[in-house]
């Protein structure tokens, strides 16, 4: 296998996914033997203009003016991987999307909200601007899954992201279900792949990886109301990381 050239790019995000990559510890050195990182603004001054085998993009597409930069990346890269939920679905950034434009500006900027340079659009996945070959969900991405999916790509094998709910992984971990503890949980509709990290640590799943292909959202709302949640809030509950996926 020829050593592929890869580069990392970031858009609207918290950069936590990049940090997760840095957290590979000594394994990072092993990874650097199978890929060549040629550009990674957060930790490298080097830039390059050569063609890339893989461009990893973190963050949402949230300003029209980023489109051009994205298109340039697309032109250079053989494969484009949107990694992290911001890039894959819009992620947490999309939580503002369903609020009328003027409203969030006023909330944050008060009287300054009318300044003309406040233009932002909805936070969208990278795929809203350019074609993406693979979107890896997760807030932040799960390191193991990231490596596994990229390794599949390097071998020319279409990567598999689970299409079953987090409950599957949660049960394998033998956790007590949040619902048994009178709590709520979005694990029933959330796409697995994280190893049920949140329920395993005693907190509900918030579906940071988005939903399975056909989430039973009606049943979810019914279930949340049964746990005592206000109906209006039950409808909004599933929108934390998935605002772009839930209709108003």
């Amino acid at each position: 296998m020829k050593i592929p050239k890869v580069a990392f790019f970031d858009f609207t995000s918290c950069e936590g996914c990049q940090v997760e990559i840095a957290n590979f510890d000594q394994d990072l050195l092993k990874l650097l033997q199978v890929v060549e990182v040629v550009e990674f603004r957060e930790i490298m001054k080097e830039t390059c203009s050569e063609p890339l085998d893989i461009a990893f993009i973190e963050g949402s597409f949230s300003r029209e003016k980023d489109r051009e930069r994205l298109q340039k990346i697309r032109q250079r890269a053989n494969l484009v991987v949107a990694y992290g939920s911001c890039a894959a679905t819009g992620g947490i950034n999309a939580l503002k999307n369903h609020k009328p434009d003027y409203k969030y500006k006023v909330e944050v900027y008060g009287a300054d909200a009318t300044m003309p340079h406040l233009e932002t659009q909805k936070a969208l996945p990278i795929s809203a601007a350019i074609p993406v070959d693979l979107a890896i969900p997760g807030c932040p991405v799960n390191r193991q899954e990231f490596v596994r999916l990229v390794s599949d790509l390097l071998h020319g094998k279409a990567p598999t992201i689970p299409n079953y709910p987090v409950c599957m992984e949660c049960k394998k971990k033998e956790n007590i279900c949040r619902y048994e503890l009178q709590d709520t949980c979005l694990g029933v509709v959330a796409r697995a792949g994280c190893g049920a990290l949140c329920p395993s640590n005693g907190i509900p799943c918030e579906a940071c990886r988005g939903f399975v292909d056909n989430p039973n959202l009606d049943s979810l709302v019914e279930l949340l109301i049964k746990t005592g949640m206000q109906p209006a809030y039950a409808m909004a509950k599933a929108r934390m990381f998935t605002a772009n996926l839930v209709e108003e």
Partner: protein
Amino acid sequence: MAQKININLQHVTRVEGHGNIVVNATNGKLERCEWQVPEAPRFFESMVRGRHFSEIARITSRICGICSVGHQLASIKATEAALGISVSEQTEKLRRLLKHGENFDSHILHVYFLVAPDLLGVPSVMPLAESHPEVVKRALAMKGLGSRWSSLIAGRSTHPVRIVPGGFSTLITEVELVELKQSILNILPELEATAETLQSVADRIPQFERKTEYIGLVDTVEYGLYDGQIGCLMPDGQKTLIEVEDYRSVTNEWVSPLSTAKYTRHQMDSYMVGALARINLNFQQLHPQARKVAKEIGFSVPCYNPYMNTVAQFIEAVHSAYCGLELIDSLLYSGLEAEEPPLIQPKAGRGVGAVDVPRGILFHDYEYDDTGICISANCIIPTNQNHANIQGDMDKLVPEMLQANKSQAEMELYLEMLVRAYDPCISCSTHYLNVTFVK
């Protein structure tokens, strides 16, 4: 010497988030000198409105992936203050231990991955793997400890999962505490080696001073990181303490047409937060081992050189390692109680939480209605507080460099190093505006 300087550094590298430096000068006359922040606005204060208190910290954690531990702690403290929840001594100790973990982790990341290349004369850590393999191995080992430290306590180092109002949803075990202790002990020699490396390159740190106001937490229990009052230190040594609830009287945010970020000012035109501010404020509370290292490297307070922030960070990393060891011993000595976070009854109220994250003092402020739904929020991020100070430094530094007839390349390097020294976390972008620049 007639000289035309035209610096336009788009998206400064090896910093978190996007920032630009623009400097124009002709014949030694400065025409323009700007620190610009073109990061896309993200509107977190708006996003948390209408969400339940149990979700808030998980949302605001996403302001920043590098100091997400600190964001969660500040957020949880604000929520606890608003809902009138108190936490056990054990929880507080564990949170302090966690805070040290984050401090260590982030500082190592900054010192090794972002600043070291400048000091060792390479563009990034990548070539170091060849030229200085021992340095890279050391860096990875230390970074590894940093993230394991937070992960053991909080479930994950980036966007931790176990920090909840009232305590921890899952407790670290005593076995894990012992394991953590051993890992920290194993890393102490690496810290010593780092001190030596730092000493050997100390002369490459630019000599530049600008007197400014320093702001950070001042705590009675320990060196201000997890808790305390807002301490403000003026260049003349005058120190005032302000309650966290009154943070707005310190931050005084204002919108500058020059920059996309909201600026802050207190008693002077700008102030500095972060490791250098903390160390200037709290030097005497540093762990003796950290003070010893400071002495070895030749660091003393007060220090007005912003480039020295990196050195201050390293000294803090040493401090956190030793304090971590002591906290672990004290937790093991008293034995871990199997505590469950309390069941929380929502009530209407407002609360402010402050934590000194690696890049400086951070405020979260929330108001809840009686069903526990957030009705207003305000977050003030350290990097925002530093922007005006960075601009202030540039305004003094650039003419000095012009005076000294520095080349454009040198100027670029020094300006970049200046920005990097602040370890700006630009993605913490709750307050950013989106300004179109006049070309």
